[in-house]
């Protein structure tokens, strides 16, 4: 068995630009979004100067994930409408998409389904910025992407272990890496200066009551993650539905009809976003 103490590798992971397996697009995106005083102008220039990236970002904002179908035509409009933090998240979304397609295809469907469920639930609960919750859902498994990419052999063993022992992938990660993808996602999101709410979601989507800044958003992502698995969409590392945290679930006060509605919107959106796979 390959066992790695990932905590000892924290510096290495945070220094993502030096990791040999990380694609150059993600490195460039990482370098811009970690800037301490990033302005809207700087970010829209960066995106607009790369036509392939710009078209990917526009395709994403106009997809069912965000609920503005076909209405956003320019990068500056997207940033005005969604805000700097959501666009930072989206940029990461487009580049992790590229990696997921190569290393773990089902994780993209899992992440997309989760993003849609998050938006629908956030809208039902009347949250002010449902797009931010949706980005959190899209990126919640970011840590997995980096682990698979950089420690492929150990991660594949963890996947086999989870299936054979009937345990969650995060438990198997703990065996093989001493920590889970939630911690890895948190390290990176801190480095990238993502908003505290997003860091909370990344770190605590398996233990939602530990969230300090965004307990409600974390509860939404926690439940959406479970609902996508319950519906059997995508693949997130193991074939099982984990138990929902009762306190987090009760916080959402969703009726049976609400949940059915989320399921229907999730299915619809995944069919519509099937063309995102040509991103």
């Amino acid at each position, binding site marked *: 068995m390959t066992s790695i103490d990932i905590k000892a590798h924290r510096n290495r992971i945070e220094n993502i630009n030096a990791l040999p397996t990380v694609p150059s697009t993600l490195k460039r995106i990482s370098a811009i979004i970690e800037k301490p005083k990033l302005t809207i102008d700087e970010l829209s220039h960066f995106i607009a100067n790369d036509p392939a990236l710009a078209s990917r970002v526009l395709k994403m904002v106009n997809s069912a994930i965000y609920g503005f179908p076909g209405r956003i035509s320019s990068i500056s409009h997207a940033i005005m409408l969604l805000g700097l933090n959501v666009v930072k998240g989206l940029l990461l979304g487009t580049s992790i998409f590229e990696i997921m397609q190569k290393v773990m295809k089902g994780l993209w469907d899992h992440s997309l389904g989760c993003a849609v469920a998050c938006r629908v639930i956030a809208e039902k609960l009347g949250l002010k910025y449902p797009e931010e919750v949706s980005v959190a859902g899209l990126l919640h498994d970011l840590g997995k992407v980096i682990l698979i990419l950089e420690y492929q052999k150990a991660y594949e063993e963890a996947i086999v272990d989870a299936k054979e022992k009937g345990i969650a992938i995060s438990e198997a990660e703990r065996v093989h890496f001493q920590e889970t993808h939630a911690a890895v996602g948190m390290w990176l999101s801190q480095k990238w200066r993502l908003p505290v709410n997003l860091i909370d979601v990344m770190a605590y989507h398996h233990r939602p009551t530990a969230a300090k800044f965004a307990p409600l958003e974390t509860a939404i992502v926690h439940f959406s993650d479970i609902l996508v698995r319950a*519906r059997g969409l995508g693949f997130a590392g193991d074939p*099982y539905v984990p138990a929902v945290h009762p306190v987090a679930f009760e916080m959402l006060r969703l009726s049976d009809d609400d949940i059915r509605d989320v399921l229907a919107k999730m299915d619809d959106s995944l069919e519509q976003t099937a063309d995102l796979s040509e991103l």
Partner: protein
Amino acid sequence: MSKVPVDKLKPGMKLSRPLVAKGGMVLLGEGTELTEKWIDRIADMDVEGIFIDGPSEQSEPLEENLARLDARFRSVAREPHMGRLKQIVKNYIEDLYDKH
């Protein structure tokens, strides 16, 4: 709503999303009922499929789908709320088949 390939379109189907040309112009509005003529025109365009009202065709038998659901929930079915959640998903899946 489901995406139907162009060669499977039939008169009487209704568009669940507008058909938009590459330049952004709406060619057929949402809710348009397809006729032979529209289907011929669409076949001449460079599109893969059209979004049509109604649930998509289910590709696997209901029993298999429900067996996979059972397998996914195997170890948590007795945890708080999980029985209810499983029932909601189960009803939802069964309804997808009923509509056909």
